[in-house]
């Protein structure tokens, strides 16, 4: 948070922009699929309009200019003057992309806007708006031209103006010197002054304009004398309170331009008869008394009759004493029947009674609050400590030998439930729908499709699936990369597709769902699938696998994740960039996630990402191996069993497998693979956990003992130590000891690599 309020608003503006861009995309996509209606068009208009409004306030001229052209077309669509056809929607979608670029550039987070692309779209939008492109000159400054007829120039907020005390501006108002005085005769001040004859229409009052305030404004410009002609006033019985009957003649002297005078009547010029004529022949005598003003007590309800008070009010700030007389008045005889000087201190006629104090804050309070992320994280940290402390306490109580049915033990159980509730609730604060990431993808797909000349339809589902904020943020890059990959490498060209009997337009599905306590992201294309012989050939060429390696189809497919593997023979603009799938895999792994691929030749490929919902806690199974306490993620464990010697077999004489439900599962000796000891394990007293890797294959982890199930708080090993193969993180257990959390997939792979093979000593 910035201390500078203006900067803080700018931050808000860009936040709002990103929300508006999201809405924009959603609504445009609805229009594209034909689900939109007039309200959708209105919503698009409003989004662009709001961007333009805010951008104007911050002087972001490029953004304003582009948004203006965009907005103008939306206005045409909204008014029905232009039909919202397919071509238009497609153009609008691309325009929203460029709008996003302009915003990013203005924010300083994006590359400078591609000027040619922007100009191209401006031209396209204008063609759609007018049927032809407007000359560049006109397009260059549409906004300024627009605003001019108000006599205002778009001005940037001047910070110095903020924080000014609540006092009325001083008399010589430079602000009233209009910036856009194009008529020299208007601009020329008339030293003599002006005679203003002013006859309000009923509408003037109906729109809550107040003659007294207009007079007050005139008084600020110079010396005034005012005459009221109330001769048109009907008798009280005949009076319609909402009608208008009064005429004022004001003589204003001083060095005032006509424009300044007209400006006072800016709001009401359509609702009154107004004549402004220059006074000839020098300054009229202003040092004379104010006209005695009538106060017609008969009709105080009529706004005009506040005149006395309001004139005083108008006059008060101007001059302390001068008493002005009506100047040579050709105006109808003043109704000055009861001269009544008014005290300058007359209270202002309040427009409304003072606000009844007991304000209803509910009416303005938003239903959401914004909280600094730091605070939430602090809370999460403390709750993490609470979980650990609670576990420690539970352990102490157990050790003390208290009966499980004792009040203390029961109370502790309740405490555990509560702790869990608190933890879940706190985590929910950080949870966010993946929508924010998914929303960016349609644009990416459009761009990649354009670049590769392929036709692509993106279908998303599960946008509302929630996951930890950090996970959401770090999902964008891998998803982007995989989508690029799916279009560039996965999908065929329209011609190839048609030749293969598929629709010319390829489909890429992006889905998010919750599965067993994790979030799963699937990116599936209906393209040609992985070319296995080629993948295999490359892997052999690069020395990633042995030439005679026996690999399943799945294993071949997953070779693309190996470091140093890149299937693109020539690096393309799209998915090249020197980043391979191994980088994607690493960034997913850094989040405690997995990535796998399954492919069906000719039918397409599916990438599956699986990530923990939170990076803070984990349901784990506490086990021991070679004297070390370890935690295995519960989500990976299928079941545990005590191995029987007759179920253990050796493939090729050394690779141990165990029979598990009519299936042979490779065994991984955890103590050994982790390097806790060198010698082989005995099966006696050992326990086997059947685990499932993200790719769906199973393995049997051999450990010494299972100590129980527990929720553990994840402490990153990398921030405190370094990354260790086979270990995803660490935690602190109830007894205060540190335990490593196993990375099942890495462990299984390591098990396969390391020669954990043979000598499982079969103790008899």
């Amino acid at each position, binding site marked *: 948070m910035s201390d500078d309020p203006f900067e803080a608003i700018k931050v808000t503006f860009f936040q709002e922009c990103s929300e508006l861009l999201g809405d924009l995309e959603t609504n445009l996509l609805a229009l594209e699929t034909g689900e939109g209606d007039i309200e959708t068009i209105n919503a698009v208009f409003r989004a662009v309009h709001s961007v333009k409004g805010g951008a104007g306030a911050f002087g972001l001229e490029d953004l304003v200019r582009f948004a203006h052209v965009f907005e103008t077309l939306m206005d045409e669509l909204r008014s029905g003057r232009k039909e919202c056809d397919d071509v238009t929607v497609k153009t609008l979608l691309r325009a929203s992309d460029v709008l996003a670029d302009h915003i990013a550039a203005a924010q300083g987070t994006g590359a400078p806007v591609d000027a040619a692309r922007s100009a191209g779209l401006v031209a396209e939008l204008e063609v759609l708006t007018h049927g032809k492109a407007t000359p560049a000159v006109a397009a260059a400054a549409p906004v300024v031209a627009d605003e001019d*007829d108000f006599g205002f120039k778009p001005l940037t907020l001047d910070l110095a103006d903020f924080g000014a005390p609540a006092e009325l501006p001083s008399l010589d108002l430079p602000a009233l010197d209009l910036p856009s005085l194009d008529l020299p005769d208007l601009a020329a001040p008339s030293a003599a002054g002006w005679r203003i004859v002013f006859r309000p229409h009923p509408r003037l009052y109906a729109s809550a304009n107040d003659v007294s305030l207009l007079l007050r404004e005139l008084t600020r410009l110079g010396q005034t004398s005012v005459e009221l002609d109330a001769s048109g006033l009907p008798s009280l019985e005949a009076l319609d309170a909402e009608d208008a009957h009064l005429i004022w003649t004001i003589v204003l002297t001083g060095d005032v331009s006509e424009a300044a005078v007209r400006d006072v009547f800016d709001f009401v010029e359509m609702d009154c008869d107004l004549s402004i004529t220059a006074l000839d022949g020098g300054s009229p005598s202003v040092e004379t008394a104010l006209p005695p003003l009538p106060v017609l007590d008969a009709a105080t309800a009529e706004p005009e009759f506040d005149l006395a008070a309001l004139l005083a009010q108008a006059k008060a700030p101007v001059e302390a004493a001068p008493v002005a007389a009506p100047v040579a008045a050709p105006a109808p005889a003043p109704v000055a029947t009861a001269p009544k000087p008014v005290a300058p201190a007359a209270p202002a006629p309040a427009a409304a009674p003072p606000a009844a104090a007991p304000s209803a804050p509910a009416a303005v309070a938003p239903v959401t609050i914004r909280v600094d992320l730091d605070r939430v994280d602090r809370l999460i940290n403390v709750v993490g400590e609470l979980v650990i402390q609670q576990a420690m306490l539970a352990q102490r109580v157990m050790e003390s030998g208290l009966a499980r049915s004792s009040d203390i033990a029961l109370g502790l159980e309740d405490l555990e439930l509560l702790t869990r509730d608190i933890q879940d609730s706190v985590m929910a604060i950080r949870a966010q729908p993946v929508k924010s990431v998914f929303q960016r993808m349609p644009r990416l797909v459009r761009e990649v499709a354009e670049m590769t000349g392929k036709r692509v339809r993106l279908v998303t589902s599960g946008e509302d699936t929630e996951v930890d904020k950090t996970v959401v943020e770090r999902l964008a890059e891998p998803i982007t990369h995989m989508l690029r990959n799916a279009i560039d490498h996965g999908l065929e060209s329209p011609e190839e597709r048609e030749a293969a009997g598929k629709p010319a337009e390829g489909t890429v599905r992006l889905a998010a769902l919750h599965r067993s306590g994790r979030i799963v992201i699937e990116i599936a294309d209906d393209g040609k699938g992985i070319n296995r012989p080629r993948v295999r050939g490359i892997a052999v060429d690069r020395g990633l696998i042995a030439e005679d390696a026996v690999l399943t189809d799945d294993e071949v497919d997953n070779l693309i994740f190996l470091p140093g593997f890149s299937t693109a023979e020539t690096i393309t603009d799209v998915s090249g960039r020197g980043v391979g799938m191994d980088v994607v895999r690493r960034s997913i792994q850094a989040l405690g996630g997995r990535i796998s691929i399954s492919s069906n030749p000719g039918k397409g490929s599916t990438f599956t990402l699986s990530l923990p919902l939170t990076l803070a806690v984990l349901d784990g199974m506490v086990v021991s191996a070679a004297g070390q306490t370890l935690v295995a993620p519960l989500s990976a464990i299928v079941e545990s069993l005590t191995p029987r010697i007759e179920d253990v077999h050796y493939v090729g004489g050394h690779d141990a497998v165990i029979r598990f439900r009519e299936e042979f599962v490779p065994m991984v000796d955890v103590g050994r693979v982790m390097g806790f000891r060198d010698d082989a394990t005995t099966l006696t007293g050992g326990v086997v956990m059947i685990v499932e890797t993200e790719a769906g294959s199973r393995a049997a982890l051999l450990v010494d003992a299972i100590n129980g199930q527990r929720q553990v708080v994840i402490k990153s090993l990398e921030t405190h130590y370094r990354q260790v193969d086979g270990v995803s993180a660490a935690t602190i257990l109830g007894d205060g000891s540190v335990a490593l959390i196993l990375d099942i997939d890495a462990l299984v792979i390591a098990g396969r690599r390391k020669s954990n093979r043979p000598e499982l000593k079969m103790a008899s």
Partner: protein
Amino acid sequence: MTKTILTVDDSRTMRDMLMLALKGAGYRVVQAEDGVHGLEVLRAENPDIVITDINMPRMDGFGFIEGMRADPDHKATPVLVLTTESDAAKKQRAREAGATGWIVKPFDPAKLVDAVRRVAA
């Protein structure tokens, strides 16, 4: 007596801006996010002056002003329309709905406060 101003705008940025400028000038500011919300806050807070945007979801500025003018308590409350819309038709439409005046966006705080002062009794 501090005057209360109700600002009705669907843009958070604009609400913040108005708040900053008006608070700096010593006004009390209450906010609403669209016309419907605006009428609610109007009744709850009885503001002295109202500033409203035109393009808003649920109920636009025209509807809001008409709703306001239909309420005897707020018939005479000044309303300034805040909008970048500058063609004469919009201005006319706002006036017909009962707007007292207008402020063209983008505004600078001095202009805004000046416009408010001009309609504030």
